[in-house]
C-alpha cells in the first residue's frame, strides 16, 4: 500500500467519473454517480469534501476505500470535544528539547572558552543556528503528517462536528491553502495537496466559513437496487434470493417511524449474521431473533416486533 504511486497512474484513475465509479467498485465500495462526481470535482479543484449523512451510510468507508484504491496512505484524525492543535497538528518534543539545552550548556563552555570578552562570545553564540525551535524537534500529528507526505495522501477528518468551534476555525487554513503556520518556524506548505474528506453526522451545524471551503456531499440512504449491489459486493457469499428478501425487508423498515433507521452498515451486518446462521430465506422466527442487529433501540424493536410477520411475508414475496 505504501508503494510509491506515480502521478500518472493517479491521474489516469481519476480521469473521469466512470473510471472512479469502476475503481471504487472494484475495491468493494459501490459509489453512486454523485459520490464519484464529488471525488472527480475535488481532485480537479483541489478542494476538500465535506461528507454528510446519517450514521452508517458509508462516509468513513468512502475515504478508506478511496485511499486503498488509489494506493495512497490514509491518515485519519478522529475529532472529539477538546481536540486541540497540539494533538491534531504538531507538538514539540519537550524531552529532546530539554536534553538539547543540557548538551548545549555543556558544549557552550568549550566553544566559547577561547573567545575574548563578552561581545565576541555573543557574536559566536549568534553564529550557531537556533535549533531549539526547529523541525527536528517537531512531533508531527495527523494534519502535519498529511501535508508532508511526498506522494500525496488521503486525509480523513472524521466526525468534524464533534470538535469545538475554535478547532473548526483552525482547520480553515489547512483546508483552503493546504498549509499550516507554526509561529516559531513559519509556514509549511503541502508537498502534494492531500485528498481531504471531512465527515459529519450533523451533531451541530458547521460554520459557514468551513462549508464555503469545502465541496458538499450528502449521502442518503440507498434505494433497493443500490443496496442490493452493495450487499452483493460486501457479502458475496450470500444467495441472491435471501439478499433480495433482506434488502426488501430493510427498505420497508425505513418507512416506519423509528428512532434510528437501519443504515447500510446494519444491512451488511445482518446479511453476515444470516449467513452465519446458514439461513437460505427469511422467516418470522429468524427475523425476531436477529432483529437486534438491525435496530439499536429497545423502543424501536418493540415497535417493529408486532409487524414482523407481515413484513416478513411481504419480503418473502419479493
Amino acid at each position, binding site marked *: 500500500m505504501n508503494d510509491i504511486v506515480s502521478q500518472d497512474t493517479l491521474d489516469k484513475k481519476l480521469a473521469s467519473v466512470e473510471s472512479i465509479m469502476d475503481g471504487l467498485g472494484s475495491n468493494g465500495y459501490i459509489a453512486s*454517480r454523485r459520490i464519484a462526481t464529488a471525488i472527480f470535482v475535488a481532485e480537479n479543484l483541489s478542494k476538500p469534501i465535506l461528507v454528510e449523512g446519517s450514521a452508517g451510510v458509508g462516509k468513513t468507508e468512502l475515504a478508506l476505500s478511496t485511499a486503498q484504491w488509489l494506493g495512497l496512505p490514509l491518515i485519519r484524525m478522529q475529532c472529539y470535544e477538546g481536540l486541540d492543535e497540539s494533538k491534531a497538528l504538531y507538538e514539540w518534543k519537550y524531552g529532546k528539547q*530539554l536534553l538539547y539545552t543540557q548538551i548545549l550548556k555543556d558544549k557552550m563552555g568549550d566553544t566559547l572558552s577561547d573567545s575574548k570578552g563578552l561581545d565576541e562570545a555573543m557574536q559566536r553564540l549568534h553564529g550557531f543556528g537556533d535549533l531549539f525551535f526547529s523541525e527536528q524537534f517537531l512531533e508531527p500529528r495527523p494534519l502535519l503528517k498529511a501535508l508532508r507526505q511526498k506522494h500525496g495522501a488521503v486525509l480523513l477528518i472524521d466526525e468534524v462536528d464533534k470538535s469545538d468551534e475554535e478547532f473548526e476555525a483552525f482547520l480553515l487554513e489547512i483546508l483552503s491553502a493546504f498549509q499550516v503556520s507554526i509561529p516559531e518556524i513559519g509556514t509549511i506548505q503541502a508537498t502534494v495537496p492531500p485528498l481531504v474528506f471531512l465527515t459529519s453526522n450533523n451533531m451541530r451545524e458547521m460554520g459557514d466559513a468551513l462549508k*464555503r471551503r469545502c465541496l458538499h456531499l450528502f449521502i442518503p440512504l440507498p434505494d433497493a437496487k443500490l443496496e442490493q449491489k452493495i450487499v452483493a459486493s460486501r457479502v458475496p457469499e450470500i444467495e441472491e434470493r435471501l439478499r433480495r428478501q433482506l434488502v426488501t425487508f430493510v427498505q420497508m423498515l425505513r418507512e416506519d417511524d423509528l428512532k434510528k433507521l437501519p443504515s447500510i452498515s446494519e444491512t451488511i451486518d445482518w446479511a453476515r449474521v444470516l449467513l452465519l446462521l446458514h439461513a437460505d430465506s427469511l422467516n418470522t422466527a429468524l427475523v425476531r431473533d436477529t432483529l437486534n442487529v438491525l435496530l439499536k433501540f429497545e423502543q424501536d424493536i418493540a415497535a417493529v416486533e408486532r409487524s414482523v410477520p407481515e413484513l416478513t411475508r411481504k419480503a418473502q414475496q419479493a
Partner: protein
Amino acid sequence: MQQTLENFLRALRATNVRVSPAEAIDAHFTVDSVGYSDRTLLKDSLCIALAKSEEEVERFDECFEIFFTRDEFRDREEPSGGDGLSNAESEMLGEQPLAELLLGGSETEMAQAMEQAANDAGVANIRFSTQRGLFTRRILDRMGLRDLERLIASLNRQEGDQVAVEMAERLEEGRSYIFEEVRQYIDRQFDLYARNAGEELREEFLAKTNLSAVERRDFDRMHRIVRRMAKKLATRYARRRKHTKRGVLDVRRTLRKSIPHDGIPFETVWKQTKIERPRIVVIVDVSQSVAAAARFLLLFLYSLHEVIATLRAFAFSSHLIEVSDILKERNVEEAIPEVLEKIGFRSTDYGQALEDFEDLHMDALDRHTTVIILGDGRSNDTDPRMDLMRQIHDRSKSVIWLNPEPEPFWGTGDSEMHRYRNFCQVAKTCRTIQDLERIIDDVMKTYFRA
C-alpha cells in the same frame, strides 16, 4: 456561455442558495473541467460545489431543472404558406427578421431568437410581479415587434391585393402567438429569479405584525422566522461558555502540567470562569387573548435548547399544568395545539394558576432560575395572590413579565398588571416577534455577561 452560468448563479441566489463570489469562481472552474456536454455530470458537479446542506441540494436540483430546460414553444399549425416563402412574398416582407421567423421559422429558431432578446433585455433583473408587462414589451421590441406592426398596417392598407391581406392575417396570428409565448416565458423567468424577493418582503412584514393578528396560513412562515432568530441567538451565546481570565495564573494546574518537563513550567494554565447556561421556567397564559403569543414564545424558547440548561414550561388558563413533557416529546408546532386544546381558551384565574404553580414547582426555583411569565394580567376580578408572586420573585434570579397589551392598558379594568410588575425585574410589552427576540436576547445577556 459565461453569461449563462452567471444567470444560473443569480437564479440560485434567488432561491436562497447562498453563492459567494469565491463559490462563483469555483463554479466556473468546475464548468471548465467538466464542460456543458454531459447534463448529469454538470448538474452533479455544480451541486457538489455550490449546495452546502441537504435543503440547499433540494433547492439546487429544482432550480437547475427549471433553468436548464429549454423553453419549448407550443406546437402551432404550420403557416399556411407551406415551407418556404415565395419570392414575391419575401419581397413584400422586406428586411424583417421577425416576420420571416413567424412565417417560416421553426419553433426552435423562435425560441433562440426570444432567448437572445431576453438576454439583451436583462431579464435576469426582474424582481417584482408588476415588472412582467414591462419585460414582455422589452423582449418583443428587441425582436422587432414595432417593425412588424408597421408592416401589418401597411399590408392591410393594400386593400385590393388578396395576397397582401392574407399575409397580414397570418402575421397577426403569428404576433398573438409570439406574444403569448413571451408572456409565458416571462412568467417562468419571474419564478426563477424573483420568487424569493416577495417571500423576503412578506417575512419582514410578519416580523412586525401583532402576534394575535398572525393568520393561520402564515404559521409555517412564522415558525421559520422564529427558528432563524433563535438560531442566531443560540450561536451568539453558545460561543461564550468558557471565558479565560487572561493574566490570572492557575498555579495548581500549571505546576501539575510542568511535572513531565522536569518541573519547568512549559505550559501555563490560566484561570477560567465557566459561564453557566440559563435555567428557565416559563409560565404562559393560554387563554383566548394571549394564546397566539404563547405559541411563538414556546417555540422560540424550545429552539434555543442548545444554550439553555433546563427549560420547564407551564401553561394555564383557569388551572395550571406542566407542559414540558408534551413539548419535549413532540415537535413544538404539533404540541402547541394539543396544549391549547387541553387547557386553553378558558377564562383566566391568575390566583389559582399561581397556587397550582406553588404545588408543582415552587421548590425547584433557585437563584439560578429565570422565570418568564407571559400573560395580560387580567384576572377576572379573582384574588391575584400577590403573596405567591412575591415568593416567586424572592426565590428566583429574575422574573420577566411579557404582556401582549400595550403599556397604557395596563391596570385598566380587571388588569392587575401594575401590582404584578412590582415583583418583576422586567415587565415589557411583547407584541411582535421582534419584541420577543429583543427580550430573550436581554435574558441571555444577564447570564452570559462575562
